[in-house]
């Protein structure tokens, strides 16, 4: 990562906006400096800037084989509400990429468990896409994804392709069903027994709300997946993204610089732990 892209904004030109759910959307854009999705590692994030308003840290949702850079965003605050109003042709400032991504090399030849809750799916999307683009890279990929309701599921238009892909199993669940929902109801861990997980060769990549992370870790540990093979992506308030503003500190770790993806033993003791 160069000093230049850490500090100054590159112009991102929006090429498409896709509505995912009533409050969540995906931006597709190109960068003015010619960089492509291949310049961003799965699990890394960018700071997206709205002129005169501020920045937000958002995970990279695209993978190297795609044309446009992708970010999936939920409008929950001042900056994200404005990002939601962008249309094709409009601009956004981009600073990044930042952070350590998913350790894909650790998962090579292993059974990869991709476990996501809610908006935890976008940072894992490039992992899924890489697994599909290169079948045999992992010894089976189990994608387990949970959302609050069927209407909150994102990337639904990708599911048929993911389902059909070689070596990829997609398991979905929702906290609360709906009249037309025929799938699983319950938290994401209720999918674990159905996924035919092999603890001896499983590597888990997990992203989602803190409670979901906590119970996923607990459940995997009970099944015998060693802590060193569990990786989590964490979220905190961020301002600088370069380890000098202090907002994202978790114990002795800077989530922006040391993370956002950590092996579980690295954060154990600080996460999940109240008030740290």
């Amino acid at each position: 990562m160069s000093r230049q892209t850490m500090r100054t904004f590159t112009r991102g030109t929006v090429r498409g906006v896709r509505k995912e759910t009533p409050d969540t959307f995906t931006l597709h854009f190109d960068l003015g400096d010619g960089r492509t999705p291949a310049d961003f590692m799965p699990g890394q994030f960018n700071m997206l800037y709205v002129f005169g308003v501020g920045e937000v840290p958002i995970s990279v949702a695209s993978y190297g084989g795609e044309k446009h850079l992708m970010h999936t965003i939920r409008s929950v605050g001042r900056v994200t509400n404005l990002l939601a109003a962008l249309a094709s042709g409009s601009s956004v400032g981009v600073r990044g990429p930042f952070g350590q991504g998913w350790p894909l090399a650790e998962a090579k030849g292993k059974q990869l468990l991709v476990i996501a809750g809610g908006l935890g799916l976008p940072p894992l999307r490039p992992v899924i896409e890489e697994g599909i683009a290169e079948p045999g890279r992992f010894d089976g990929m189990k994608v387990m994804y949970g959302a609050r309701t069927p209407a909150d599921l994102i990337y639904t238009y990708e599911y048929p392709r993911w389902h059909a892909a070689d070596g990829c199993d997609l398991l979905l669940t929702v906290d609360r069903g709906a009249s037309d929902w025929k799938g699983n109801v319950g938290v994401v861990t209720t999918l674990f027994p159905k996924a035919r997980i092999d603890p001896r060769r499983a590597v888990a990549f997990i992203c989602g709300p803190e409670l979901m992370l906590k119970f996923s870790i607990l459940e995997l540990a009970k099944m015998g997946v060693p802590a060193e093979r569990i990786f989590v992506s964490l979220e905190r308030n961020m301002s600088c993204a370069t380890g000098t503003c202090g907002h994202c500190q978790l114990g002795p770790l800077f989530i922006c610089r040391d993370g956002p993806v950590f092996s579980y033993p690295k954060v154990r003791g600080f996460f999940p732990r109240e008030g740290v």
Partner: protein
Amino acid sequence: MRFTASKDCIPSLIRNLEDRGYTVVGPSLSEGVVRLRELKGPADLATGVVDVQAPGSYALGRESPLVFSSVNGPDSPKGYLHPAEVGLSKLVDDGGSIELVSGFHSDRKYAFFGIRPCDLRAVQVMDRTMLVPGFEDHVYSALRNGAVFIVVNCTRAGENCFCASMGTGPSAESGYDVAITELPEKLLIEFPERSAAMFEGIELKPATKEELRTGEEMVQHAKEQMGRRIPEHDPSKRMYAAMDSPMWGRVADRCLACGNCTMVCPTCFCNTIIDRTDLRDGSVSRVRVWESCLSKDFVYSAGGNPRLQRAARYRQFVMHKFAYWPDEFGTYGCVGCGRCITWCPVGIDITDTVNSVLVGQEGAEKKMEAHPVV
């Protein structure tokens, strides 16, 4: 090599620094407090005033025959090297494209004159936090570059000082450009070869054994005067073990979460970048301002607020200094200057906190979830 010089050399020393292009910053009287200010000349130097400090209290007391008579006020070099407010960039929106009008630039060279050893150490601590290889902060780097430190060893400990137990004072060990010990009649001066030019036109005499011994005794006296201390034996490890002490909650009941401690702390670096729009031309300034981990919204995000409880925020401040900092940066985040004790409106004493969480470590009620899940 160690020398002595007459106390009358101080104006020449300051002028020599000015002549060499330095902006000289030193203790100066302002608003009834000894602050660290740009000295417009030798007359601006606060001399002969003694600061009387206590938890939650600062006053200027009796007069003193010494030139360097006060210990430390609320300011430290941090205010110059990592300013409370600094413009990072000025931007304009040129038809959808964000254009940089100007970025941060400084070719100022600071000479910190008359600062104390704890503050020199604090700069060395900031070097670790702000100059991490690959992540160097360009503002700090520019302001720090070329700075010189004319440090005055302490011969009197302030009421709230505890540098001796942190190993950061009362005398400067390394990294100074000049170290001065003020003897009753003259100055005892030590400096590396590179600083020789600062003494142009100043008469230096080799220090006698007697003078050196007097200097050492005076510094030793300050060390012995210090009433406050942090337990020396590896507090970092033991602080981790004390994270669930009920003492955090007890101290936090008094804490107002005002953030004064973090503002006066010479090593606290937390900040936030804000956008300031100029209504005249529509330009935007990206400004970096100090922030505090004591602020309620400091860690607020869409995912929630992990430190909603004041006890959690107070614990963060203290744990950071004494436990996280060594793991992050290989040094304690505290230099024992005592400012957070003096400038706390309710007089919370960080040495009390550390000592009591370490003592109360056994049998502590488990207030917070104590164990990792796996």
